[in-house]
């Protein structure tokens, strides 16, 4: 069952170049269509500026698309700030990269974990205290740690507290934006395991945004690769990681340090979203570019093997 659907969503921001420059539109997300099924994880990978975080914010309704639609549980996303939108917060939550920035430094974490319950009017004081205790246990925090302020916890413990708060109102969807990128590898593994456990026990769907392909492979049921505001490949994680079809996906997989694929080093800098190349946006860096790529933008088409690829040369 589809829980979240993005249909051709686009979002741009005006950006001024230089001090007195004219404002130009930067298309952060440019016609993205994605679906997340209930209880499943869609991994979104890509480099800085590919629009993956904006996609997450559009999915949560924190941003309104310039065009296209976002549908959650069969209903259109209400405009941000209204009563309907606020009620929907109980259903969908963000897990950000920086837990210290997401927590209030002045409040003990237990108070913050209880906040969604207060906001959505769930239970009385006693029930809330019980619920907080259950949440703490489910994310692996001790009761004495709940009384601490965020700065008295380690990075991993803070991320656990953020998760407990995100789970408080019983959401159906978590949008995780680089949730383990700031953590050390041993702690990263703890949180990755915790996320998969929580998904199993609570049946939560996840939109998992990360630049780390290893982590994305570990948690995802389906993967979408983004480049310059568009999805350029989508499919089964194992299929994409063993046999990436788009030349950009191939370069990404080959660049994973310690991977088995030989290095085909991609030349050039990551592209500037304010200066999108004509035709296929990847063509200036593409090792197999042909004339058609410079003129004609490839569409994301589903191949016979079920993989969706936006490349003139990888139709399959």
């Amino acid at each position, binding site marked *: 069952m589809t829980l979240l659907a993005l249909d051709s969503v686009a979002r741009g921001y005006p950006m001024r170049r230089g001090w007195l420059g004219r404002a130009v539109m930067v298309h952060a997300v440019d016609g993205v269509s994605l679906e997340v099924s209930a209880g499943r994880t869609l991994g979104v990978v890509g*480099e*800085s500026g590919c629009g993956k975080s904006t996609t997450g914010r559009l999915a949560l309704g924190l941003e309104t698309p310039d065009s296209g639609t976002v549908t959650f549980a069969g209903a259109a996303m209400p405009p941000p700030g209204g009563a309907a939108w606020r009620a929907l917060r109980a259903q969908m939550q963000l897990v950000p990269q920086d837990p210290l920035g997401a927590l209030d430094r002045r409040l003990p974490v237990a108070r913050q974990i209880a906040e969604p319950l207060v906001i959505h009017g769930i239970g009385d004081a006693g029930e809330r205290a019980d619920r907080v205790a259950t949440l703490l246990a489910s994310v692996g925090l001790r009761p004495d740690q709940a009384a601490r302020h965020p700065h008295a916890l*380690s990075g*991993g*413990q803070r991320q656990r507290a953020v998760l407990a708060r995100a789970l408080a109102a019983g959401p159906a969807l978590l949008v995780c934006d680089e949730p383990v990128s700031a953590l*050390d*590898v*041993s*702690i*990263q*593994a*703890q949180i*990755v*395991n915790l996320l*998969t456990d929580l998904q199993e026990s609570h049946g939560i769907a996840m939109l998992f945004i990360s*630049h780390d*392909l*290893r*982590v994305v*492979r*570990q948690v995802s049921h389906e993967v979408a690769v983004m480049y310059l505001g568009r999805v350029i490949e989508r499919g089964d994680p194992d299929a994409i*990681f*063993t046999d990436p079809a788009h030349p950009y996906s191939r*370069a*990404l997989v*080959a*660049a*994973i*340090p*310690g*991977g*088995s694929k030989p*290095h085909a*080093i*991609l*030349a050039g*800098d*990551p592209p500037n979203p304010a200066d999108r190349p004509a035709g296929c946006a990847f063509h200036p860096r593409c090792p197999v570019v042909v004339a058609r790529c410079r003129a004609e933008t490839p569409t994301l088409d589903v191949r016979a093997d079920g993989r969706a690829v936006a490349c003139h040369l990888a139709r399959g």
Partner: protein
Amino acid sequence: MGLTVVPSASPLIRISGLSVAFNGTPALLGIDLTVGAGETLGLVGESGCGKSVTWLAVLGLLPNSATVGGSATLDGRELVGAPASVLERVRGGRVAMIFQDPASALNPVHRIGRQVSEAVTLHRGLSGGAATAEALRLLDEVGIPDARNRMTAYPHEMSGGQNQRVMIATALAGRPELLIADEPTTALDVTIQAQILDLLRRLQREHGMALVLISHDLGVVAEMCERVCVMYAGRIVEEAQAGALFAGPRHPYTTGLMGALPPLTGPRLRLTAIPGRVPEPWAMPPGCAFAPRCPKRIEACDVSVPNLRGEDRRVACIRAAA
């Protein structure tokens, strides 16, 4: 893969019993290691394990609140406690260091050409046109496209990868025999990381300089280094040739780090995360610092700190075969 280097009789850098404490709190608890000429050594470990502090201490870059003990010699010459005049000649001269965040290491209000030529003037005594020409050659060498025109750019006009190339050019200005790269690609996108690692590999080959790569990323270290030291809570816990280490780690912490890394192929099993967290420096366990998190812990582990045993391959664990 790195070069095969015949180990010479005397290493370029020899660190013995190096310790650092900040305001009485220990951060580094006695490090012994050597770096040979032209060698690539990887230092891996998590935040706070002392991998960066080791080299900041060697180069005299720690604040006054730090107490440094032990010894670090460059070609037999002591650097710990050496006068500023000696350290200033070493830093950026025979030993150069680059950092994770090039944008903050570069001066935002100076053009990049000027920053590189300053380093050339300082370390090579060139001035005027000669320094500018050398700066241009260095920017070319590190792969800044259209370097002649980019000389007048400011750091904010360059991408993160380009700025790291500029930092590397600055580091090369003094023709170092050893380059210490502290998480040089951690802030970069993966395709740009691949470019920078490739550049470091090429420069090392062409200049024959030694490279110490400090990284939290086992994959990066596996790919770049001949020899690897794994650090935990201020000590080296395992040291081995990279191939041997990744094929069969002996310290339970090294095994744990590798198990925590999601694989790229095969079935997606639950990760074997290391439970708990690194001990706080003011609350170190009495024996092995890893014992509280270790699956192989026995009573003896809590009695005393295990020594780093072995010759070519060293491991600090009483449960491991050296």
